[in-house]
């Protein structure tokens, strides 16, 4: 039986015999976002996992701070920080197996790094020496996607292709609340459901698309409610609760891997910093809202849990902090080196073989650079 045939042979039937294709009830998200930390469910959480999450969260926040600092020093063109959203970023990377694929949105550098991509290569795009700085096949991480939601159909196609080839691969695709308004979001989710592709869609609802608040983006009860319209389950999770995000995403990945098809997960979180270093968030939101959310900080939440259960003491906190500092120092040092750049690279990867026209243009640039070098030499 082919993948396509598995979908069954549904045909429209006249209304007397009408019945929904699938029972909508199980597809609807719960009324409340799923939470683990601070609830009874926390007791069942794996201590090792919680400790790992904690270390990654702290490192992630430090990475964000370091990257933002690098923009001030002119070492990065721009940086969209995910501070406050580290639980989503880290969990998204950690729930995947080696063979799985991650499809990040432009804000998801943390997830990319948590998946194993070199922290400097992950910043190439934002430093400006090239576009995608890493080999997508090395860690199975698609390029950070700037055009919003356009990476979602890629994730669906890749997952579908893997399934066609009989490979046991899941794709996890990330998108923001704003990105859910794009047509590509709709088309991707629909294809995924029709093909029963092994994809997990993670929407980080951080309340804003640059300056535009959620109320101007959607009138839906929740973004997770969109799932029912595609015939896939929608799940709502507290996006600042790393244990909860990890559990919900793990379930969805397992479901997809088992052939159960896609899931839409909405994580409720908050963008604590401005859209990017270049943005001024005071133009569109007040401090008190930010303060409220800081009371629900993902690192603090997890730290509280770990401390209460005796899984973390001051020394443990300090070790984690130190590790993060080491990472930051290394990042700083490496980012302070100028990248080696070859302008001839411009022509190298437009096509497998440069066209005759590009060869001409390459020679033109080569001659110009030689002339420039001569002039500089002469001036010395």
């Amino acid at each position, binding site marked *: 039986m*082919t993948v396509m045939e598995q979908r069954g042979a549904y045909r429209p039937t006249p209304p007397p015999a009408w019945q929904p294709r699938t029972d909508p009830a199980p597809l609807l998200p719960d009324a409340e976002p799923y939470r683990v930390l601070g609830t009874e469910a926390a007791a069942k959480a794996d201590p090792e996992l919680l400790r790992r999450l904690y270390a990654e969260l702290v490192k992630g926040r430090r990475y964000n701070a370091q990257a933002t600092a690098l923009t001030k020093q002119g070492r990065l063109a721009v940086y969209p920080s995910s501070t406050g959203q580290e639980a989503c970023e880290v969990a998204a990377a950690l729930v995947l197996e080696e063979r799985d694929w991650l499809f990040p949105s432009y804000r998801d550098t943390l997830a990319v790094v948590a998946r194993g991509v070199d922290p400097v290569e992950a910043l190439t795009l934002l430093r400006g020496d090239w576009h995608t700085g890493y080999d*997508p*096949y090395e860690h199975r991480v698609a*390029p950070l996607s700037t055009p919003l939601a356009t990476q979602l*159909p890629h994730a669906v196609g890749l997952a579908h292709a893997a399934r066609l080839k009989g490979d046991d691969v899941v794709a996890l695709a990330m998108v923001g609340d704003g990105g859910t308004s794009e047509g590509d979001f709709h*088309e991707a989710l*629909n294809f995924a459901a029709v093909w029963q592709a092994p994809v997990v869609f993670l929407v980080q609802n951080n309340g804003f698309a640059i300056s535009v608040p959620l109320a101007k983006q959607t009138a839906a009860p929740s973004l997770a409610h969109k799932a029912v319209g595609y015939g896939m389950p929608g799940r709502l999770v507290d996006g600042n609760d790393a244990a909860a995000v990890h559990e919900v995403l793990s379930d969805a990945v397992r479901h997809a891997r088992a052939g159960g098809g896609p899931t839409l997960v909405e994580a409720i979180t908050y963008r604590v910093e401005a859209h990017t270093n270049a943005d001024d968030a005071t133009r569109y939101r007040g401090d008190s809202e930010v303060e409220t959310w800081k009371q629900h900080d993902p690192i603090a939440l997890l730290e509280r849990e770990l401390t209460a259960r005796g899984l973390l003491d001051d020394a443990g906190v300090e070790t984690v902090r130190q590790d993060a500092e080491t990472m930051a120092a290394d990042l700083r040092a490496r980012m302070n080196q100028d990248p080696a750049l070859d302008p001839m690279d411009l022509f190298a990867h*437009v096509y*497998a073989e440069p066209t005759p*026209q590009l060869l001409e243009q390459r020679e033109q640039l080569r001659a110009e650079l030689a002339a420039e070098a001569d002039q500089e030499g002469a001036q010395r």
Partner: protein
Amino acid sequence: MTTVAAKPATMAQALTRAMRDAMAADPSVHVMGEDVGTLGGVFRVTDGLAKEFGEDRCTDTPLAEAGILGTAVGMAMYGLRPVVEMQFDAFAYPAFEQLLSHVAKMRNRTRGKMPLPLTIRVPYGGGIGGVEHHSDSSEAYYMATPGLHVVTPATVADAYGLLRAAIASDDPVVFLEPKRLYWSKDAWNPEEPTAVEPIGRAVVRRSGRSATLITYGPSVPVCMEAAEAARAEGWDLEVVDLRSLVPFDDETVCASVRRTGRAVVVHESGGFGGPGGEIAARVTERCFHHLEAPVLRVAGFDLPYPPPMLERHHLPGVDRILDAVGRLQWEAES
């Protein structure tokens, strides 16, 4: 074993055969689009493929062009070679963001790590009495997008040979199929089309000494006809079929123009901002001192494609081509 005719007679059949042979030769070739499976496409160009290779290899997609191209990108990322059908030229527009921002750029963005071996088949052009949005000539958009190959056959043999090459290419190829030639049988190359035709080479369809008609796709037969008619006026016209708009074969085109000293670019697409501007400009840059007259253009008018009953006034025909040839300043001759 095969449900496809062994000896293709029409361009549509040659295209079907090209996909069939590619699918048989390479299991990573997948055909996808609206109605391409059970129905075999609205032009029947994918006829029989789903039956022979199964629905997983020739797939009816949901009705969403960005989704079709976007998922094809993902499939290509995983090593497949998707052959995507856009049902009509104007219905490729919803997929333009995927095309311009991803398909054309992915190799470049990833420094060559993630090439996208994708073929995007687009039935294009008019002359079939189609209602609005069914007869656009959209090649100018594709030509202006670095990272895409843009190919268009004018003969049955090229339809086969170029489509095989497109599918085999490691780069994305926009494969423009002249709708009104789908049912054409080859007048000048009737043998079974089994040769792959490398992308990027123009061909001289007819040799002549007086002037060169530079053309492609649906306008090639029109130019051949014009060249025949021109004999009565004493003109011996050369006809160059570009076949590939990107990469552009400057060599073949310029060799012809240098020989004849005069040229007219002919296409159905609107003139302003259309392919003819690029072609005329680059020929002039390269052959200026060989030119007896400016390179002229015969193109569609600069307007939305007209309704069926008026399209004949819009499309470049033999008379309009001969008029242009007549304006190539022959007085300089004497």
